[in-house]
């Protein structure tokens, strides 16, 4: 069951790679949150009620509801155009995503380690690289934030891969990670929308050495 969920998670990445509209990105992020919740639910076997509530808050409430609603609000408020405007065509995106996944699978096969769940490792690593790829190839600042959120999801999966033996540390880390980063990014995006009319990375090149 966990494997099915994780593979679905991987498929959402492919979907994200060819998505055209900003709203699709937001929906995929919300879906990833839900998937992550079920993965956690099945993965962490000896889970206390408090821990469960924490994870529920983090995945469902935070990742699937609060962040997507907020992103949609930002989109609307700043009148951001609906297209994602990638630098590369979708076809190339798809190929690159495939390459990322294949390379991580090959990489995971080299590693021989009993402490590591291989499929978790593959999903985590490809999500991570995919997030970096999104950041590098999309034009809008808000897509950078989304790429960062994808990376966060990848880190979350990675922490599950190792977290069976140290759940508390991982919980703490993830909560703080999401808390600080999205809080900062979120508040910031609002301001950025006010100052830079059309949110585009090309406008962020005024800081120079001379």
């Amino acid at each position, binding site marked *: 069951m966990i494997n099915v969920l994780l593979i679905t998670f991987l498929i959402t990445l492919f979907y994200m790679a060819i998505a055209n509209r900003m709203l699709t990105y937001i929906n995929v992020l919300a879906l990833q949150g839900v998937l992550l919740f079920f993965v956690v639910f099945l993965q962490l076997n000896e889970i206390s009620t408090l821990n469960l509530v924490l994870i529920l808050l983090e995945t469902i409430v935070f990742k699937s509801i609060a962040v997507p609603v907020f992103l949609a609000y930002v989109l609307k408020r700043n009148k951001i155009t609906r297209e994602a405007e990638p630098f590369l065509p979708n076809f190339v995106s798809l190929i690159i995503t495939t390459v990322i996944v294949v390379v991580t699978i090959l990489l995971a096969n080299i590693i021989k380690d009993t402490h590591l769940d291989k499929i978790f490792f593959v999903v985590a690593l490809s999500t991570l690289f995919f997030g970096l790829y999104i950041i590098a190839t999309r034009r809008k600042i808000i897509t950078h934030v989304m790429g960062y959120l994808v*990376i966060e999801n990848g880190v979350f999966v990675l922490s599950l891969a190792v977290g069976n033996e140290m759940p508390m540390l991982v919980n703490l880390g993830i909560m703080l990670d999401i808390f600080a980063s999205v809080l900062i990014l979120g508040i910031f995006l609002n301001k950025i929308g006010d100052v830079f009319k059309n949110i585009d990375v090309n406008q962020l090149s005024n*800081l120079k*050495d001379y």
Partner: protein
Amino acid sequence: MTLIYLIVALLIVVSLFVNKNKLINISLISLFVFLQWSYTIYACFHFRSTEFEFFTFDSLGVLLLIVLSVISIPAMIHSLIYLKNNNEETPQSRGIYFAAIVGLITAIGAGYLSNHIAVIWIFTELTTLCASALIYHHRNKLALEGTWKYIFICAISITFIFIGILFLSLSLQHAGSDDLSFKNLLANASKLNPFWLQLAFLFIFTGFTAKLGLVPMFTAGIDAKDNAPGPAAALLSSVLVNLGFVGIFRFYIIVANTSLHQWANMIIGIAAVLSIFVATVYMIKVKNIKRMFAYSGIEHMGLVMLGIAAGGIGYYAAVLHIVLHALTKSSLFFQYSQLKKVFHTKNIYHIGNYFKYNATGAMVLLFGFICATAMPPSGLFVSEFLIFKSLFAANQVIVLILVLLLLTMIIWAFGKNMFKMLFIPVIGMDEQNVPSISPWESATQLILLTASVYLGLNPPQEFVQLINESIMLLPI
């Protein structure tokens, strides 16, 4: 005491944030400086003890905590001067500014002392939050751009550190332990799985370079120091950099005690040489005085890391260098505010003949230049000399020659800009409206620079002992 310190500091941050009264504001700041110093003195008297499970007053932590407390006093004084001179200040912006500074200093101090890799990570994250409030102080478009870049790169670097910690925990599971404190890691160093440790080192090192100002994540820090007000930039370029150093250094001690020592040295060495190279390239081109100081910081951090990579006497020199650099670089940034007041620009093209307008300030700037480029009698000369010596001892003569060449170019570029600002008159300067600046405003910088010379040339016994003790755990 640590808990009391953190709680009281948090209370001060909150009350600074909500307070609108100027008098209460100043008294709260004085209260914080008092708190900071009493905590430092307490730390000195409880040397080597552990408090609240996660904080140990060890030699490196106490040494850098003292440096932090020393720099925090001029930082507060110059912040008050800076805000008084700035006409656009409102009670609200003043409150946010000081709340952020107090939060930053507290987070840095607690980060120095933490003995657990996750705790140091949390405090590093907090510094990002406080630093971004300082960078955005001017509320204009450039500040926004700088803040955005800083936050984004720091967020990614913090994620990297977290990934590194996850890999480290995987590595530690092979040793049959799950306690990520540095002490336990060191005790289990020989049993750590080398493959995961390698990955962990790469990620944690890359993550902390955003704070340390080293290749590959150095860019964020440059924009941050450019946009933050002078006194805040002084903190960012000195004590915050030290926090990045502490993060890398504490983890390096563990890696150095495993079979990966040579490999880690190679990684650090490559990053260090690249940093010095990048700093040289930018220093030749740069025309923004604040960015010039920031690039000079990258060069120094490259040298520090080179000392670490070379080993031997290099360890001692690296810790000495980081202390002296903090004193020197912070005073240069403090001095910048006066320069800005006279010329109203950061651009070197429009700054000149500074000796005519503010002789004391120009003297400090010249003295700071001599210190920062490590010319005798600068204390940094001693530490750089020791770093070169350690490179010799490690048979890295080619690296040494390359670094010396690059340093020569840096000194030339730095000197060219500096002497232009100090002596060559600038065209179209309106001499009627030059404000007179009290020489007393330069006093703290002179004290800091003199301290850096003194500590370099004639280090007190206790100071040497602290450095020696902090590098004690490293293999020779």
